[in-house]
């Protein structure tokens, strides 16, 4: 009989443990149910992919939006931003949420992930057609940033944090090598020419990274080398085995093996910018997302320029867009659009660009006094915007994850000495097998 209190105690402990588990999970998802009160509380998943205090900036945005009191159907709209990791992690979280019937109202995900989540999101055309403000906003985005939003004649996402590839170069090294520091190379041949002058003991001419987003850098070369792209617009075909694509990879490899202006082997995406900042390479290709990093850390004068072209000037775009989800009420979808319109206002897009280093998505942002002042003091930020004229669609296909890996493996294998014709042929073959179910 003496043991009875212990047993009871254990039972209580056990029950409270169970209820704690249950309570936790139901609480986290309550935000997505339709509110029958007088407010619409939206959940917004967003990733952070660059350094700096982006989370704080986002929280401040949400706070001022919530204060402003935007209304839909007479109900006040509020937004709760949920930090969801980097792009990959955000995608995983969204997919898991959707699978469990708990989709967020909106999310910022890679613009190229469209085909991975098309079944879970809505196309925005109807909403835009009924809303002149939304129409005006869509027309004001840089056309280059809209390329990855469109598929099957519909618009699926709204540009938010966007980037391109840029050529960074060290002006001090240019001067030292007797080159004009205001004139970066504009063609592939000039890159080799400049590179040979810039390469010396302990200093390379140029570096191209081949891990993480290395395929993106390669896509820039492939785009420059012809008038096609690496994939079809509907995301159901890839063209890795064309002569343009193969020659572009050959050019990349030649930079190390033939011209010896780039280190041999696969160069890491994260160490290349450090190499540049440390003065180990005179030029590099990297994302506009590194502008702020280089600006804050380089103790020499640096310039940025359009990517050198071959057949044409070209860069793929990159970055993340807003998506609105399907499994929520129409009222919530409208409310989500209100928030997107609010955050994409020219002034706010300008502010976002200054805070983060991303290119402001709207053309009229560059007319705002804030951004004008910023680009005057930091003209490098303007180059990124001007290059948008030569922007093309970033590779975006069904089975994005697997196909990007095939392409990246082919690039890395070729850099490590395999024949680039064979590796790209193999990637093409395997990608075709993966894409078959979608045709």
């Amino acid at each position, binding site marked *: 009989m003496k043991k009875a209190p*212990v047993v009871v105690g254990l039972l209580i402990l056990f029950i409270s443990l169970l209820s704690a588990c249950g309570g936790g999970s139901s609480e986290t998802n309550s935000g997505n149910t339709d509110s029958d009160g007088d407010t619409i509380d939206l959940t917004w998943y967003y990733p952070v992919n660059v350094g700096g205090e982006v989370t704080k900036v986002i929280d401040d945005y949400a706070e001022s939006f919530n204060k402003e009191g935007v209304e839909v159907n007479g109900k006040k709209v509020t937004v709760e931003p949920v930090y969801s990791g980097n792009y990959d992690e955000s995608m995983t979280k969204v997919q898991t949420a959707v699978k469990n019937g708990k989709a967020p109202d909106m999310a910022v995900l890679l613009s190229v992930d469209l085909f991975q989540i098309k079944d879970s999101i809505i196309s925005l055309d109807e909403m835009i057609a009924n809303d002149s403000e939304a129409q005006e906003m869509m027309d004001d985005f840089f056309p280059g940033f809209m390329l990855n939003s469109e598929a099957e004649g519909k618009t699926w996402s709204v540009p938010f944090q966007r980037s391109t590839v840029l050529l960074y170069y060290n002006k001090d090294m240019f001067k030292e090598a007797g080159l004009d520091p205001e004139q970066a190379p504009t063609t592939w041949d000039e890159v080799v020419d400049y590179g040979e002058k810039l390469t010396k003991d302990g200093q390379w001419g140029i570096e191209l990274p081949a*891990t993480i987003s290395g395929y993106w850098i390669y896509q820039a070369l492939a785009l420059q080398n012809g008038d096609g792209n690496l994939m079809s617009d509907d995301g159901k075909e890839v063209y890795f085995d064309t002569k343009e694509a193969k020659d572009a990879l050959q050019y990349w490899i030649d930079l190390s093996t033939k011209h010896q202006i780039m280190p*041999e*082997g*696969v160069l890491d995406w994260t*160490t290349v910018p450090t190499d540049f900042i*440390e003065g*180990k390479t005179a030029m590099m290709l990297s994302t506009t997302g590194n502008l702020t990093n280089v600006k804050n850390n380089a103790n020499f004068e640096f310039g940025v320029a359009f990517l050198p072209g071959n057949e044409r000037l070209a860069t793929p775009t990159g970055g993340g867009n807003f998506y609105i989800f399907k499994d929520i009420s129409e009222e919530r979808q409208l409310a989500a659009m209100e928030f997107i319109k609010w955050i994409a206002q020219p002034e706010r897009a300008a502010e976002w660009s200054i805070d983060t280093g991303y290119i402001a998505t709207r053309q009229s942002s560059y007319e705002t006094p804030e951004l004008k002042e910023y680009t005057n003091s930091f003209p490098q930020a303007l180059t990124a915007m001007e290059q948008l004229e030569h922007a093309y669609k970033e590779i975006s296909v069904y089975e994005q994850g697997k196909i990007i890996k095939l392409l990246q*493996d082919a690039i*890395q294998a070729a850099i490590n000495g395999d024949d680039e014709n064979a590796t790209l042929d193999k990637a093409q073959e395997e990608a075709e097998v993966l894409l078959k179910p979608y045709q």
Partner: protein
Amino acid sequence: MRKGKRMQENTMAWLFLLPSLIFLILFTLYPIIKTVYLSFFQSDLSTDRPIYVGLTNFKMMLEDEVFRKAFINNFWFAVGTIPTSVMLGMLLAILVNRKIKGTSLARTAFFYPVVIPMVSAAFIWLFFYTPEYGMINKLLHLLGIGDLNLLGNSSTVLIAIIVMVIWKEAGFFMIFYLAALQNIPKELLEASHIDGASKWMQFWKIVFPLLMPTTLFSVVIATTNAFKTIDQLVVMTQGGPNNASNLLLYYIYESTFRFMDYGKAATATVVVLVIMIVIAAIQFFGTDRKIHYS
């Protein structure tokens, strides 16, 4: 009466076990069963809902070049890390188990890699291995060897990762060996000394056998680590170049979170599970009986 008491004792035992049992079922048994179940289904981006495909996933896995590469890499990774880090741990422990000046400093120095998170360590080593200004390359320069892009080369990347993991793990095993060494009765060593045993003989006949329980423990831990730690790959190579440093768990991670191919991930998980069960069985039934627990 007696029966009733027994019943009560049993109930008590179960009640005490219940909390951990629930977590075991919830987070270990249920996922294992679900994984085995899922490995018979095609469940990826091209399917709305899982389709039963029998053993197709396993057949495809055998034909998958990347999986084979990850499998072979993982074998060499295990061979490269397990014996070396355990032996190094033992060696370091013997080294710092002496009463000379500076041992506590040496102990701290050997142990500190264990304390830093793997992700931070991987970032540090990413820059150690960087050509030109990385520490490793600066050392190589002193030896007159030119710049090596160790992580960017298929033939050196796995070795580079193995060295880093040994550095990270050896200190951990050192601590256990150190505790074990200090538990060896002094009389044994003194007695053998009087009998005229050399240092070498003392080690082989007394110290080493008494360290065996620790060795078994360390080998088990090192083995599981060889299959379960991939943080360094995420940071340093993403399995590249061209899968030259891809390991099984990274393969599973990519299949799940980047490709959303849950069927393939489940199949690979089942394969790893079977490997682990076989290794564990060999370790416990094969060596456990030969070990002397004092």
